[in-house]
């Protein structure tokens, strides 16, 4: 067997359970100092002056402000409009205004007190409502067919407005970087990140250094979820600026409080729907407006909005669609990448709208979805014709088969209707269902523009070394990549080794984001090692490679590794670099939003069961059944682990996680007050993988890391409605919110 679908222990497993794995804060360099960041206390202010008084600081401490920057004041991402340090104005609370470095962590904090900033507070814009009339950071639109005509001929037009809140990543390892200069002026940065080459680009741009004078190395990454996609670039610049100022290695590691207030979150969103349907529940026209709170700077918001647009119509058939999306600017910390990248917000809204439509027409939640779910050969509103691995209906059917959702939902609806006023204190039971999909890989022409390379070469001991820029933030590419490489070349996992993500060694195979790692980079690895294998066996007519042996048609056998070693010794370095080229049919027109926005999609259906306390309205998820189709699972345990973890993250977002602000300042900037699910808050999560091999991915794999974030929240919201009759239009559905809706009689009875 080739090992695909097996679950070998992850190679970093023992280092992680024994405490030996080295995260950035575990690294200490000789002579290293510590950095700290002076942050704006105001959401919006003019900076009249910044004064540094070294006499008040610990001996030798250094300070860096915008005046000390050697290059442009921009963190290069999509553009460089996000300042490294505030210049003249501060646009959000916790915006970096100045940096200090000192010999110890505490001395660095003390040094912050030696800086005096004279601010002139200005009026801030703090809510989407306030921002809606102002010019947006970014806007996008998409039209297919004639939505007004579709709504005009519909039997019913149903409107709804849905809201989702911030979500903080809470990777258990906070952000951190160490920077140091070598004697020749070359800079090295080591830290926690998803995208070494993003950090590299930001450093060369911001510091005016040539590519070969900047080296970026990823340490063990203690969780990412998108939160280590862009901010590491800024923190790396800060550490490098301090290292430059004090002439020593400098470590900048955020504590939890600083990480919460200072780094990105999921975009809050308002999504408005106007949907035309036939009497029997078929979608005729979707009119969708999306507003997202981008915070103070655009960072990655334009691509988040793009993905939001392309998921807002959901896994449903609809010919006439109009979508308008805007990212609005508020005086809050920039919102940016978070698992799902705009899709969870719009899929929550659409799923809630589907439930509203179903109630209006007297259909159950499964029926409305079955009647509209896409099938292979259907067209999405972008015009993309869906391929054979389009599993929306399969996921629904399997979820129904496993849970008996339809019957249970009806029983609980009837039980609710029978229930008299007042409660007997017994918990209320509810069940909810969602259908969701997620485009795998970069949106649109992203992969085509990037043409990301992967290199494979034969080492001096005959093993194959694969070089990619992907980081393992826990998802497990350290286990999956060797499985793919071994299976693709017919060799043993121990015949192949992987280089550490280090820009001095590895090519720019792109960022570790967008559910692209297994599907895109894994696919490149498979092709690159297969090409190396072909070189090793070239000239041997009819030979094949299996389990690490080259087998000739005459029955001869030779260890692959020995043949590879001989080729290396005879020919010198043997190396293959391949670039990802999307297939020709995969084109996307960014001006009309038509074409194949993604090479393929992953699919899922969730059934969530909850208990609601009738007196406090506290919601407890009891059981989740997640049926997902992500192509073939390379490593079943890790693949299921992505879905389990993503599902719980979705339930946290749906039920309890809430960033509270007042006047632009955080009210709950710590883990005592920003609450994520503990093991006691967590339901049983049963994951069922429907494995449909997708021909475009390595051994049939698609991307799956973000998919589970899309389904948990709408299913939980529907379950709460099923239990209580309270119409859930916004998340998090905290007891306080549910009580408010109950008191204002926002119930499913009048939702239609």
């Amino acid at each position, binding site marked *: 067997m080739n090992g695909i679908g097996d*679950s070998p*222990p*992850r190679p*970093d*497993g*023992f*280092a*992680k*359970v*024994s*405490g*030996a*794995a*080295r*995260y950035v*804060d*575990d690294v*200490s360099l000789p002579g290293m100092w510590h950095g700290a960041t002076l942050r704006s206390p105001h959401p919006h202010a003019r900076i009249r002056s910044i004064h540094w008084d070294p006499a008040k600081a610990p001996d030798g401490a250094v300070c860096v402000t915008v005046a000390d920057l050697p290059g442009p004041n921009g963190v290069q991402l999509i553009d460089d409009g996000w300042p490294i340090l505030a210049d003249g104005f501060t646009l959000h609370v916790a915006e970096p205004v100045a940096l200090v470095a000192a010999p*110890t*962590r*505490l*001395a660095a904090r003390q040094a912050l007190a030696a800086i005096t900033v004279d601010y002139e507070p200005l009026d801030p814009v703090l809510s989407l409502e306030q921002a809606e009339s102002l010019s947006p950071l970014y806007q996008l639109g998409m039209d297919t067919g004639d939505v007004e005509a579709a709504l005009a001929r519909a039997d019913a037009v149903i409107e709804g407005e849905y809201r989702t809140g911030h979500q903080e*990543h*809470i*990777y*258990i*390892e*906070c952000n951190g970087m160490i920077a140091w200069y070598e004697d020749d002026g070359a800079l090295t940065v080591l830290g926690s990140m998803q995208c070494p080459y993003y950090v590299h680009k930001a450093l060369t741009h911001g510091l005016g250094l040539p590519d070969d004078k900047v080296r970026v190395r990823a340490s*063990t*990454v*203690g*969780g*990412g*979820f998108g939160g280590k996609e862009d901010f590491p670039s800024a923190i790396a610049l800060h550490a490098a600026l301090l290292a430059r100022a004090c002439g020593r290695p400098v470590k900048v590691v955020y*504590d*939890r*409080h600083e990480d919460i207030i200072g780094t990105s979150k999921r975009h809050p969103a308002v999504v408005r729907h106007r949907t035309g349907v036939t009497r029997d529940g078929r979608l005729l026209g979707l009119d969708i407006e999306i507003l997202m709170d981008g915070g103070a700077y655009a960072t990655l918001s334009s691509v988040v909005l793009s993905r939001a647009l392309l998921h807002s119509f959901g896994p449903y058939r609809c010919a006439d669609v109009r979508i308008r999306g805007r990212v609005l600017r508020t005086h809050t910390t920039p919102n940016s990448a978070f698992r799902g990248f705009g899709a969870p917000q719009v899929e929550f809204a659409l799923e809630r709208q589907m439930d509203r439509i179903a109630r209006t027409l007297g259909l159950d939640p499964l029926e409305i979805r079955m009647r509209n779910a896409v099938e292979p050969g259907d067209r999405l509103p972008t015009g993309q014709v869906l391929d054979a691995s389009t599993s929306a209906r399969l996921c629904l059917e399997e979820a129904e088969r496993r849970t008996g959702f339809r019957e249970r939902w009806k029983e609980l609806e009837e039980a609710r209707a029978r229930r008299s006023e007042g409660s007997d204190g017994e918990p209320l039971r509810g069940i909810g269902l969602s259908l969701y999909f997620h485009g795998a890989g970069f949106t649109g022409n992203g992969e085509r523009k990037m043409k990301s390379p992967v290199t494979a070469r034969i080492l001096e001991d005959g093993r194959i070394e694969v070089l990619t820029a992907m980081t393992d933030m*826990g*998802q*497990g590419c350290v286990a999956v990549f060797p499985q793919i490489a071994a299976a693709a070349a017919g060799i043993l996992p121990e015949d192949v080794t992987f280089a550490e993500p280090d820009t001095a060694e590895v090519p720019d195979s792109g960022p570790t984001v967008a559910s692209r790692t297994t599907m895109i980079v894994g696919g490149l690895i498979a092709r690159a090692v297969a090409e190396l294998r072909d070189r090793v066996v070239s000239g041997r007519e009819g030979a094949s490679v299996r389990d690490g042996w080259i087998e000739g048609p005459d029955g001869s056998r030779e260890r692959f590794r020995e043949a590879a070693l001989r080729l290396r010794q005879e020919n010198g370095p043997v190396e293959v670099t391949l670039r990802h080229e999307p297939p020709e049919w995969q084109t996307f027109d960014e001006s009309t939003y038509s074409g194949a926005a993604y090479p393929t999609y992953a699919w899922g259906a969730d059934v969530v069961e909850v208990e609601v306390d009738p007196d406090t309205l506290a919601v407890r998820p009891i059981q989740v059944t997640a049926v997902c189709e992500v192509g073939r699972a390379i490593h079943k*345990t*890790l693949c299921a*682990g992505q879905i*389990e*973890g*993503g*599902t*719980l*993250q979705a339930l946290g977002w749906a039920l309890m996680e809430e960033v509270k602000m007042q006047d632009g300042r955080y009210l709950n900037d*710590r*883990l*005592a007050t920003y609450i*994520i699910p*503990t*093991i*006691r808050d*967590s339901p*049983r*999560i*049963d994951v069922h993988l429907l494995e449909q091999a997708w021909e475009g991915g390595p051994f049939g794999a698609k991307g799956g890391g973000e998919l589970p974030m899309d389904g948990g929240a709408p299913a939980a919201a529907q379950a709460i409605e099923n239990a209580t009759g309270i119409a859930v239009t916004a998340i998090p559905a905290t007891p306080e919110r549910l009580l408010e809706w109950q008191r204002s009689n926002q119930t499913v009875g009048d939702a239609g």
Partner: protein
Amino acid sequence: MAEVESDRGGCRMTTSFLLNGQSIEAEGHPMERLLDVVREQLGLTGTKEGCGEGECGACTVLLDGEPVLSCLVPLFQCEGRRVETVEALAGRPDGPLRETLERFVATGGVQCGACTPGIVVTLAALLERNATPSREEAREALAGNLCRCTGYEGILRALLPALGPEDSKA
């Protein structure tokens, strides 16, 4: 933050305790966090800081065999006591937790690993007093350890062989 500067001429004292079976004399301010002493003074970086205020459990160590949050334990409280960190409990491939740890990796109990040392220490204490915990007992014991990656399922699966049949998942 309870972090206290130790070289500022303030109060300093020597605290003697048993760390992973060895006698240690740690110099420092009596209110210095055990977490910092262990990580920075003694170089045992397996113990992680996740929140610095006793909410996440990443810094869990054993104090006289009981799991405690080392970010909340001042150095002076360790005088004459027994401190064990993940390195001693899980650092040896032949240690008593070996089977549990192998299962922990095999069942997907580890993803990013930042919460893992704290969870391993908590499990060591749980299994010491109860070799066959029920699912509910395991959930109770782990209630103070946050994990953001696994949804906790892989962690519970690692304990399944120790769970009674009525607790096993269908």
